[in-house]
């Protein structure tokens, strides 16, 4: 999240992802419904929902599940990470 601030001495995961994407020319796509639910909005969405701030780091774009379906179909490898939240 563009508005998240990591404590000193802790790694900034968002910056690491942004850096990885920039170095290798990767698409960094967030599921739009998951993002909105968590308060992550880009310019378009903050305008649409009349929120005052953009909270998505500019390295990331918001996309629909269709993009996941399409990317999965084209991929030779797919990695997901488990989570309890």
């Amino acid at each position, binding site marked *: 999240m563009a508005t998240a601030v990591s404590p000193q001495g802790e790694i900034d995961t968002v910056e690491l992802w942004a850096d990885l994407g920039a170095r290798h020319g990767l698409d960094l796509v967030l*599921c739009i*419904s*998951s993002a909105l*639910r968590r308060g992550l909005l880009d310019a378009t969405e903050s305008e649409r929902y009349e929120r005052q701030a953009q909270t998505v780091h500019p390295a990331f774009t918001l996309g*629909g*599940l*269709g993009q*996941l*379906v*399409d990317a*999965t*179909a084209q*991929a030779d490898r*797919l990695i*997901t*990470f*488990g*989570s*309890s*939240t």
Partner: protein
Amino acid sequence: MIRVSSVLVVTRHAPYGTSLSRAALDTVLAAAAFDRPPTLLFLGDGVLQLLPDQDAAAVGTRSHGRVLESLPLYDVNTLFVDSAALAQYGISRAQLPAGATVLEDQGISQLMSEHDHILGF
């Protein structure tokens, strides 16, 4: 002919409290809408999603069971279910929705190896 890659969606969390189970179902529905209905496996705590007569009104969300019931409309007809988890939670096979297939550990491992991709939730 281009072979369509097969996808197994594994859902292993309880239906309410987190949004993961809902995210898994949304993904299944999206894939089905693109004519790529995936295989669905309920593993561990995920079997709790299959309990009948869910009433989610008090927690202010839509009933997960209701969405599950709509799966056959999207050509998702087979639900694979973790046998050990059913036993752990005391859920009988009679309580499961139509189209549920109960798998032992060996069957689960075979199911996973038969698919090109596994999406875990």
